[in-house]
């Protein structure tokens, strides 16, 4: 990955180390056990606003589709289609690399893990004037990124599957 990468924090390797997904899952479990699901959602919102701030800046310049293409190219075993239209960018996640790796290794998955895609991405999207809606989960899902407006239906968390 070169310094002109569309990813905010480039590395010398081209693809990440999948065992780090164990730590992501464990981090969510720890925060949920200590601070409840609301604490976990605050963590996701805070990390979206703070750590991923450079992504917000990119998205405010129409960089949503190219970001996700580069992102999933660097995630091991991800199978994701990125569709771009004038109104939205839609991700069709055929194989979620996170869920896949946790399942392959028999790890106990935090049931609400798929909600992190909504809460983190929504916190990234808001400063860029965008919104995200997630449907599905537990290994495959659809994520739609579009301009935020008052008539947009809020995310229904029941549309996001419980993972196992």
């Amino acid at each position, binding site marked *: 990955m070169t310094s002109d990468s569309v*990813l*905010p*924090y*480039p*590395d*010398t*390797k081209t*693809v*990440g*180390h*999948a*065992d*780090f*997904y*164990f*730590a*992501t*899952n*464990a*981090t969510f*479990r*720890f925060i949920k056990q*200590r*601070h409840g699901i609301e604490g976990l959602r605050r*963590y996701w919102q*805070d*990390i979206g606003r*703070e*750590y991923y701030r450079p992504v917000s800046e990119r998205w405010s310049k129409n960089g949503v589709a190219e970001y996700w293409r580069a*992102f999933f190219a*660097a*995630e*091991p075993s991800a199978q994701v289609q990125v569709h771009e239209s004038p109104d939205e960018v839609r991700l069709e996640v055929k194989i*979620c*690399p*996170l869920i896949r790796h946790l399942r392959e*290794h028999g790890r106990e998955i935090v049931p609400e893990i798929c909600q*992190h*895609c909504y809460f*983190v*991405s929504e916190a990234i999207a808001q400063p860029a004037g965008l919104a995200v809606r997630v449907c599905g989960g537990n290994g495959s899902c659809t994520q739609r990124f579009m301009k935020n407006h008052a008539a947009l239906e809020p995310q229904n968390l029941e549309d996001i599957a419980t993972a196992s």
Partner: protein
Amino acid sequence: MMGCYDFCGHYEWTFEWLNRLGGHELVKAYWDEAIHRDSQLHASELIREKGFEGMKEYWGPTLADEGAVYERTMTKDVFRIDMHECPSKGFLIRNGLDQYSDYCNHCMGWIGPLMKQAGFVIDHEHNHRGQCWWEMRRKDNATPASAPGELSGEDDVRLRPGWQSEHTDHYERATDPDDKTAI
């Protein structure tokens, strides 16, 4: 989605988030409970069951997959790692990510309790530049840490021209991230 490609970035950010929320004790609990006992339970099992052979099995593929430049030295009494280019700290330095006061502590934060549970103690130093060394011995072995070059020869990270730093953390027969002195 939070990816594994830049995992070390959001991992380091998380230390500071937890520190703001619950201070040092919460960060320590996170390293022990979430990383040692949950994320890295495969490492715990290997090392508890196989001792030095388990360390070799765990750190061989893991450090290679992460892109580390390192050397391992194993005898019947000690397992040593010389880390010349830590992929994790290197990633943070290259990207200017420095939210938490001492990222390098996280290794002793999870490996320390793991080794304690498995019956080992650790001699260790890290220089906050992406270089460190580790020596694991059984807790009933009173042998002190090796002198530079004694165990790993010219691969000893302490012989590097850039090893000395203004802020090196030092541990002797430790299993707790707070058991350190600055040298």
